[in-house]
């Protein structure tokens, strides 16, 4: 089962602004791009159009793994505003 399908079962209230902001300059200078592999929700990818790292913040499980793992400190990450983001029903 694809991770997108798993995320589709969850309940998310999506804010119109992202709680994850990437420093594209730092991302361009990064060879490892740990984010592409380490996010358990698989939200990081390389945009086919721009070649930049993009993150689908709407499916964020709010674990903070990317924030810790990024070797460039290129991820500005905070919890979504009150009432937004993932709402676990089982947890």
């Amino acid at each position, binding site marked *: 089962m694809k991770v997108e399908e798993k995320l589709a079962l969850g309940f998310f209230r999506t804010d119109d602004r992202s709680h994850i902001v990437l420093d594209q300059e730092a991302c361009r200078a990064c060879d490892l791009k740990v984010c592409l592999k*380490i996010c358990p929700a698989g939200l990081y990818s390389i945009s086919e159009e721009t070649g930049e790292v993009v993150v689908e913040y709407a499916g964020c499980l709010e674990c903070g*793994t990317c*924030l810790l793992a990024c070797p460039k400190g290129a991820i500005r990450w905070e919890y979504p505003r009150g009432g937004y983001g993932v709402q*676990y*029903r089982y*947890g």
Partner: protein
Amino acid sequence: MEGLDAVVVGGGLAGLAAAYRLAKDGLAVILFERGDHPGSKSMTGGRLYLEPVRPYLPELWEEAPLERMVTKERITAMAEGASVTFEFTSEGLRRPQPHSWTVLRSPFDRWFGEKVAEVGGFVIPQRKVTDLLKEDGKVVGVVAEGEEIPAQVVILADGVLSPLGEKAGLRGPLDPRYAAVGFKEVIRLEQGEIEKRFGLREGEGLAHLFFGSITKGVFGGGFLYTNRESLSLGLVVGIEAFTERLPAEMPELLEDFKARPEVAPLIEGGELLEYSAHLIPEGAHRVVKRLYGDGVLLAGDAAGFALNHGITVRGMDFALASGALAAQAVKEAKERGDFSSGSLARYEELLKGSFVLKDMEAFGHTSEVLAHGRLYDRYPYFLCSLAEEFFRVGAGPKEKISRTLWRFAKDLLLDSKTWKDLWRMREL
């Protein structure tokens, strides 16, 4: 909101335990939770060890929405294409009191939030505490998305990343060396089917840990817990260890784990209900400088209170007890009319007198022992090869067991790394 004694930040177990005890003792307390209700951002593997917690919260457990009483423990060492499983069951896990329970945190924490309200605490959901109110360096309340809420004391139970603990100057940022990510699926299965499939009596449950090739040489492991009508199946993976090797994409690791012949039949026919992830402190107490300051206390994951002992994986019991002890310290501070750092130092004294800091001190280095890659490839492979020799009957004459054992022992003991690992294991 005038005259508040305490603000609690975070509707997880530490925050809820603190708010519950404070409200029950008649203090004016507000708990802020950023999700829709307490528990909507909580996630566990998970199993709650109740014995350590009972003295601090004795009255809650009769009606608590726990899932299954764990009466069966399994640990599986996994190599590629082979595995060895150890199973333990005992009447002692049932009596005189149940030893541990599986739990789903969203319903559990939600219920706990209702209990807080029942004893007179205010639980405010959908509000994120964004900053601390400070006066002359002392914490005198919080700021919740623009609104200032003054209070005598603030209990920070804002979780493993604890952005507010940093703002209070009590801790540094979480370090990738001291954290793992846990991610899991909750899979629906009929109650009776679970009991049949896992050989359980009604209402009883299994806790099953896996280690070895499933994390591809990286610190971590797998878990399976039986809930009343679902299974929690997932992985825990060390952040730094993973970034050093990048062995696969994280979601793929879980799919590989589910496809293992040891696991696939256990979840067959189950319906996926939810996918979740959360960071776990693994030695994160090292980034914590102080557990209290002027007008502020740190509890639960935010304080780095959690212990992965390899066999027992604990955190929720530490959260509940530290929250209850934070409440105790605040109550005494109120009696003294003094919420200064000197007065709140009582919190650390209480923690030191409890299992929380005793166990953290005794086992605080286990995360270093468990960080060694050989635990996840060499040793599981060794166990599986040895078992293969025992159980296989080949075409030729069979080797004596004593001879096989000697051969394997020699191989292991002539390796100086084994001795180093054994020496390290004294920390466990």
